[in-house]
């Protein structure tokens, strides 16, 4: 078991007190490809921010890779994110002042386990996998939304994270590229035993995954 969520609750107080997550508990096994579905506003993104350790204002317990990370300080959580979690965002994608290649390399440069040449080689590999190798040296700001999203996916993969989380990672992609990304994720899960947790509105995408968790109004069905 790679991820355990125990009775997680979260409230917002602004503008009025409002419980967006209500007693959420589930386990995810290593190598599992899990999708998270539910109506808009039901709390999927909110949950994903908690799972990714970025949001620490919740009650309940979160265990990642056997470590109870609830209550860890920000620096420890940052290190866990850097090494163990890859994240694809719903809207905000890339650092616009850098090339695509550099964007992908940054998390690995931060981790500092490989040399710059090795990192660059790996980054190019990821780009090729996603059919983006010809855009490598373009500034990130000059890409279309779909292209940016694919670069963001490549970036999430660069450190071979244990868990890859995506908030609608294929939201901006056409069906052909959605299929490409799905195949990549599935291969990572089943062959490299990396765990995938992805929010999606795409029913086919959800159905094809190993398991679908459905949320309604801050609860799991």
């Amino acid at each position, binding site marked *: 078991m790679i991820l355990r969520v125990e009775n997680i609750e979260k409230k917002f107080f602004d503008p009025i007190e409002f419980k967006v997550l209500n007693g959420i508990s589930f386990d995810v096994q290593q190598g599992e490809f899990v999708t998270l579905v539910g109506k808009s506003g039901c709390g999927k*993104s909110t949950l994903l*921010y908690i799972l*990714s350790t*970025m*949001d620490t204002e919740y009650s309940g317990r979160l265990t990642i890779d056997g470590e109870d990370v609830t209550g860890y300080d*920000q*620096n420890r959580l*940052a*290190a*866990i*994110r*850097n*090494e163990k*979690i890859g*994240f694809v*965002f*719903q*809207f*905000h*994608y*890339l*650092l*616009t*002042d*850098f090339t695509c290649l550099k964007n992908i390399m*940054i*998390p690995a*440069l*931060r*981790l*500092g386990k490989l040399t710059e040449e090795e990192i660059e080689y790996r980054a190019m590999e990821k780009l090729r996998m996603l059919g983006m190798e010809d855009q490598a040296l373009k500034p990130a700001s000059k890409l279309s939304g779909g292209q940016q999203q694919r670069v963001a996916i490549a*970036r999430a993969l660069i450190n071979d994270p244990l868990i890859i989380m995506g908030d609608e990672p294929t939201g901006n992609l056409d069906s052909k590229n959605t299929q490409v990304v799905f195949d990549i994720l599935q291969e990572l899960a089943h062959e490299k035993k990396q765990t995938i947790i992805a929010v999606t509105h795409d029913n086919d995408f959800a159905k094809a995954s190993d398991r679908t968790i459905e949320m309604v109004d801050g609860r799991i069905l």
Partner: protein
Amino acid sequence: MNINRNIAWTYFVASKKMTIVAILGVVIGISIFMFMNSMAAGFDRTSGESFFKTTPHIRVYKDDKISQPLKEESLSKTLIVNPKVVPSINTIDNPMDWVKLIRKQKEVVVVFPQVSCPVFYNNGKSQITGTTIGFDPVEADKMFRISTFTVQGSIADLSTHQDGIIIGSGIAEKMNLLTGDKINMTSSKGINLTLTVVGIFKTNNSKEDKTKSYVNLATGQQFLKENNAYVTDINVNIDNPDRAPEIAKELTNLTGYKAEDWIAANETYMAASRIRKIVIMFISFTLLIVSSFGIYNILNMTVSQKINDIAILKAMGFNGGDVIRIFVYQALTIGAIGVMLGVLLALILVQALQHVYIGGDIGYFPIRFEPWVFLRGIFIGLLITFLAGFVPAKKAAKVDPVSIFRK
């Protein structure tokens, strides 16, 4: 390159116009800071130099005493008293013993006794009032470096001519005297002597040059109608003139006579010089602070423009410290370039001003390259840069990525 520095550099290059403006601010602030402080140091040095042409670091002399009421119980009774200076001879008893003792003190480098006597230089019917100083020419030259400002003859000739005298250039001009000429003088004690001019000095302090003359100690004592044990002052020079107040205190305790340091002796001048220093400090620091606003401004802008980037970096595992480093590196890059160019500009300004002739007592503008001033400028410049960058960087480090992603 370290990734934080790499990102900092990218931001540095990305906002060219503002970066250049910020750098210019630092260049101007730093160069004016260094320039003005070099100027202040130059003024201090020249005024110090001109002081020490005529003033010892410490002067030991017998202070006048005010008469005290004879009766102790005067406090309880009303008593009319009329305090007066006690009439006594201003001589230091056994001066040579004191000279020997003072010479043994730590940090003391030159000690010699002198007498000073008010005199008239008789110029036909008219008289010039002035002062003559009697001392041992060899020791006195060690202290005042008289040989560096004698324009005719030499101080050494005074040692060989018992009846010799060295006069200020102002006296020489008025009385139309050259070395070898005779000069007639009358002292306040009514002694009249005719001496031979063996040298003429020019301190560039016109008051000194118009009134002062140097004679042998014995001649001075003769003017005062006193024997060869009579001495009014003991002059003392030490290693470091700045330590004069402390050492003067020690000498007062040691001898029981009044020991006055040059700083106390020139109270008014020192106060004016302190005010000048404060004004220069104030102006140059204000400039530095204003120039740091440029850096603060550009960093604040970058932080708010790149708030998305900061959120993404944090999501990818950059911690607060990394974010601070990114923006502080950016600030320091601007600061370092600004400081470097500022040093260059300051050097050019100092060079240029060195060749400006002011005239009068000063001559060329008293400014030169002051390593300490420059080092201090570099240090303060980088420190202010750091602080100007640190404040926005700290703000950036506090950015909550989730609240950015939710927008």
